[in-house]
C-alpha cells in the first residue's frame, strides 16, 4: 500500500518538539468503581511498532480503549502534539488514530466492500476506490467475498478485514487489540506477516497489545510489560526476548 505514504510525511508537521507521535502519561481508567489502570506511561514514535504485553486482566484492552477515547480516562494523552484526552473516537480517527478493537469489530451486516468503504469515512479524496482495490489485491480472499456480508466470513478473514478497514482511514497510528485472539496459530502468523508488510510499506505506526509474547516480540521493535494496571518493564523487543524474567513469565521457556 504505497498510497498511504503522503499521509505519513504530512504527519511530521503536527508532531511536538519531543517528537513522539503518541505520548501517554499517568493514564488512569476503569469501569465504574473498578480501577483498571494506575498510571500508565508509554510513547510511540512515528512509524514505530510497539507492543504492550500482559496477562489476562492486566489492563491491555483498557489501555487502548482509554487512548482512543472509547472510555473515560485521567492523565495525559498527547497525539501529534495535541492533547486528545476526552475526545470521542470518531474525532481521533479524523486526527489519524485508528483502533481495531478486540473481537474484530467489523460491521457484520455490511458487505466486505462496504466495510472497507466505511473505513474511509473521514476521507474525501479521489483515491478511495483505488485503495479498496489495493486491499482486494493484497487480500485476495477479501476480494472474492467483496459482496458477502462481513459476518459470514471466518475469524481470520474478519481480522484481516478489520485491519484493512482501519487502514482505509490512512491513519498515522494503528491501535490493535489482540489480533491473535481466537485465531489458529497459522492464521495468526499470516495476520502478523501481513501487518509487518503493511506497516513497513506505509510507515504506519502500530501500538499492539498481545498475550502472545513470542509472536509480538518478533513483530515489534519495542515493548512494554503491563501488570495489574502498571507498566513494570520496557525496552527493545530483542532485549526483552532475551530477558530471563520475561522468558519465565511470558514466553513459557
Amino acid at each position, binding site marked *: 500500500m504505497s498510497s498511504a505514504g503522503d499521509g505519513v510525511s504530512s504527519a511530521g508537521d503536527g508532531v511536538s518538539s519531543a517528537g513522539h507521535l503518541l505520548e501517554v502519561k499517568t493514564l488512569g481508567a476503569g469501569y465504574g468503581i473498578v480501577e483498571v489502570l494506575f498510571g500508565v506511561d508509554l510513547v510511540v514514535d512515528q512509524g514505530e511498532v510497539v507492543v504492550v504485553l500482559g496477562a489476562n486482566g492486566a489492563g491491555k484492552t483498557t489501555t487502548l480503549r482509554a487512548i*482512543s477515547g*472509547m472510555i473515560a480516562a485521567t492523565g495525559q494523552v498527547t497525539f501529534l502534539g495535541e492533547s486528545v484526552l476526552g475526545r*470521542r*473516537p*470518531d474525532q481521533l*480517527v*479524523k486526527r489519524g488514530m*485508528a*483502533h*481495531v*478493537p478486540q473481537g474484530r*469489530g*467489523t*460491521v*457484520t*451486516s*455490511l458487505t466486505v466492500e*462496504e466495510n472497507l*468503504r*466505511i*473505513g474511509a*469515512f*473521514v476521507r474525501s479524496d479521489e483515491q478511495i476506490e483505488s485503495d479498496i482495490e489495493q486491499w482486494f489485491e493484497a487480500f485476495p480472499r477479501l476480494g472474492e467475498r467483496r459482496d458477502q*456480508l462481513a*459476518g*459470514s*466470513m*471466518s*475469524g481470520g478473514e*474478519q481480522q484481516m478485514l478489520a485491519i484493512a*478497514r*482501519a487502514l*482505509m*482511514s490512512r491513519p498515522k497510528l494503528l491501535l490493535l487489540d489482540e489480533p491473535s485472539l*481466537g485465531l489458529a496459530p497459522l492464521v495468526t502468523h499470516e495476520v502478523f506477516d501481513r501487518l509487518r508488510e503493511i506497516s513497513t510499506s506505509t510507515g504506519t505506526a502500530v501500538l499492539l497489545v498481545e498475550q502472545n509474547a513470542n509472536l509480538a516480540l518478533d513483530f515489534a521493535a519495542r515493548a512494554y510489560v503491563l501488570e495489574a494496571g502498571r507498566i513494570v518493564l520496557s525496552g527493545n523487543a530483542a532485549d526483552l526476548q532475551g530477558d530471563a524474567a520475561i522468558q519465565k513469565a511470558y514466553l513459557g521457556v
Partner: protein
Amino acid sequence: MKDFLQILLVGIGDGAVYAMLGLGLVVIYRSTGLLNFAQGEMAMFSTFIVWTMWSLGLPMWLAILGGMAGGFCVGALVHQVAVRPVGDPHEKPLAVVIVTIGLFLGVNGAAQLIWGTLDRSMPPLFGRGQVTVFGVAVAWQKIGAVIVLGVMVLLFYLLFQHTKLGLAMRAVASNSESASLVGIPVPRLLMLGWGLAAAVGTVAGVFIAPNLGLGTNLMQLTLIFGFAAITLGGFDSLVGAVVGGFVVGALSSVMPRYITIFEKMPLAPAFILILAVLLFRPEGLFGKKQVTRV
C-alpha cells in the same frame, strides 16, 4: 369478482399509507437499530403542523414541506432530549424502547395541549375525484398515495444504498461502536435518523387525516397496521415495508368482507399476520437474517 376487486383496491390504497408509516419505522430501525413506538404520534404531531400552516393560508404543498421540516426538528429534538441521555440503544435496547413508549404519551399530550381534542378536517391532497379502471372506481387520492410512496421508497433506497451518508447510517444502526471507530459521529447520525423518520411520518399523516379526521388519536390504529407491515416485510427492508403495507391493507379490507367475525375486529387480520410471521419467518419476507460466524 368486481366487488372483490373494488374492495381489494381500496385495501391497497389504505396499504400505501400503512407502508408510509412502516417506511418511517424502517428508517429509524436502519439508522438507529430501534423500534420506535412513538413513530405514529410524531407523525400526528407534524400533521398538525401541516394543518396549522395550511389553515393560516399557505398552499398545501408548502404546508407539507413545512410540516416535514417541523417534523424533522421534532424528531431530532426528541432524540437529543429523550433518547440520547438514556443511552445507546445497542447497550440498553429495552430502556430505549420504553422511552419511545413514554414519548408516545408525551407527544400525544403535547399535541392535545397545543391543538385541543377536537378533530380538524383536512382536504385530500389529490382531491375527491375518482377514476374508473376496468369498471372499478379508484379514488385519485389512493393512486396519489401509491405514487408518493413509490417516490419515497426510491429516495430512501438511493440514500441508504448509494450515498456515503446512508452507508454510515447503516453502520451506526448495526454496530455503533465500530461506526465510531471509523470516524462516524454517531450521535449526529442518530439524530438525523430520527429527524428523517419523523419527516416521512408527516407524509403518512397528510394522507390519513382527510379520511379519519385530524385528531390526536390519528395514528394509533394506523401504527398497528404499520408494525404489521414491517413485521411481514422485514424490519430493515424498504421494499418489505411497501409489500407488507399492501398485503396488510388488502387483508384488512378483504377479510372483514368475507369472514363475518372480522367485521367487528378490524385489527384482527393484522394481529394474526404479525403472529404468523413471527412464528414461521421471524426475519420477514425481505428482512436480512442476522449472520454471525465465530
